[in-house]
């Protein structure tokens, strides 16, 4: 009697999970927190247009997206950094071949409290600040106050991008690290809030998060270059030095519903949504 019930139960579980797996009308998108708002906006518009299709979007960080793509728990990974060689190797081992699609650009804003007299910095000054070589605002012409460094957690693509392109200046052999005293906050919003309330703080995040409570610094490549503020025009024409591509990763060439969704993001309508959500469209 008991055994028969057990059998029925397992059978039911198998059948339902088989049905769930066959559900081709739904795709899972996972990854970069920076891109959640953008992809969510795409998904909403897309679902409005093609009734019956379902796109679920969750964040967690670019790394989370890649690990889900590799383990097969999502169909599309969103990422604010390129996939690492190690991750490609792991994917290959599981029979997944990551395929990169550039869907938008993002300028990384470096922000301070509006009460901070500093308004512009060079990239090497930024590197010195975030690696802990400069610890007082006085050294770069500010008030005599200890600098409070704010960074994203290591699961953030923004963290990795900032480390590789600002701290390490694109040099793959560089060993520069964030100062160990840098505060690791779990979201861009937390950095925005802390900067808004702390005159000694400096942080970085995607330019979509800039508001009146923070001041975005003008950044120059070196002392001879022009200082540029993070705006959509400056990112498109390449004048603003800290901007990065945003990607969607699929398993192999997109097909079926995944292809329909990716095509939509790259269409004129999709790229208009990019502008609305404060990111920068890719040139088409």
């Amino acid at each position, binding site marked *: 009697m008991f055994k028969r019930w057990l059998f029925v139960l397992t059978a039911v579980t198998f059948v339902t999970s088989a049905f769930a797996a066959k559900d081709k009308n739904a795709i899972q998108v996972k990854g970069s927190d920076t891109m959640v708002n953008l992809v969510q906006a795409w998904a909403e518009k897309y679902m409005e247009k093609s009734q019956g299709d379902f796109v679920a979007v969750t964040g967690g960080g670019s790394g989370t997206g*890649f690990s889900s793509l590799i383990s097969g728990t999502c169909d599309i990974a969103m990422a604010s950094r390129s996939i690492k060689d190690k991750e490609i190797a792991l994917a290959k081992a599981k029979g997944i071949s990551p395929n990169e699609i550039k869907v938008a650009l993002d300028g990384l804003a470096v922000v301070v409290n509006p009460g901070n007299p500093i308004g512009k910095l060079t990239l090497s000054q930024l590197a010195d600040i975030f690696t802990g070589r400069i610890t007082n605002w006085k050294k770069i012409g500010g008030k005599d106050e200890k*600098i409070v460094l704010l960074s994203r957690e*290591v*699961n953030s693509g923004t963290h990795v991008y900032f480390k590789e392109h600002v701290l390490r200046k694109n040099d793959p052999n560089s060993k520069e690290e964030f100062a160990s005293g840098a*505060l*690791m906050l*779990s979201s861009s919003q937390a950095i925005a809030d802390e900067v808004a309330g*702390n005159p000694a703080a400096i942080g970085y995040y995607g330019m979509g998060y800039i508001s009146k409570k923070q001041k975005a610094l003008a950044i120059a490549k070196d002392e001879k270059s022009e200082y540029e503020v993070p705006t959509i025009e400056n990112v498109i024409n390449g004048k603003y030095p800290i901007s990065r591509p945003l990607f969607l990763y699929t398993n192999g060439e997109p097909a079926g519903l995944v292809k329909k969704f990716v095509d939509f993001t790259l269409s004129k309508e999709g790229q208009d949504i990019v502008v609305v959500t404060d990111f920068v469209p890719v040139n088409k």
Partner: protein
Amino acid sequence: MRKFKELIIEKLILICGLASIFFVVLIFLFLLKEGLAVFKIVNPFSFLFGKSWYPISEPPQLGILPLILGSLLVTLGAAIISIPIGVGCAVYIAEIAPLRIKETLKAGIELLAAIPSVVLGFIGMVTLVPLVKTVFHLPTGLTALSGSIMLAFMAMPTIVSIAEDALYSVPKTYKEGALALGATHWQTIWRVMLPAASSGILAAVMLGIGRVIGETMAVMMITGNAAVMPNSILAPVRTLTATIAAEMGEAVVGSEHYFALFAIGIVLFVISFAINVTADLFLHKRQ
């Protein structure tokens, strides 16, 4: 037929009883399997006593001393705050409070235990953190002290309810004897009741500390998470639990980073296991 029913029920309950042990063993084996793999890459000594935690660099630096000290510092602070208040509260409830106040207080403490830790963390972030910053003139309020204060609130319900229980189960004759010998109420509490209940109170304290060291969400939100060697309770710290929670999503399954996080899990498991065993020893000593 009735006997048969009894037998079935007995066996079912037995399975329930064994299930918990079975799961603990499985979890522990899994932790060991995943965590010990990290020691193929770093030796245990430099893992436990290394001062740099840069898990995603090439090659990764996996030293968890700052994280261990961070956890201990926050826990120590929380213990210093919550033990006197918690034990005092238990004494008041068990010995002094009139029935009506007693019931209200007990309900209030249960309510405190019911607040989700993420809510406490959020409240701490918007109220306590700015307060700590202005009171101590710090560059930032995201410090170990903020974490300690918030966690003290979380340890209190455990400490109060178990300590109160311990005081309550001291035989009535002790108290009556002391009062009959002419001791005042306070003398009775201090010299007779507290020593008689001491092992139970110690167990309460240990369990409270166990709760604190395993807490994740609130500390992640308000301690700043900087993996630096803590030199003061007014500096930011990164705890073991917050490290696992913040980085598990990123860690690629099968990478050094992934194994290192499981190894941190083993360290945490060992710490809480030691605390629980100590608490258990005290509890059994009482009986």
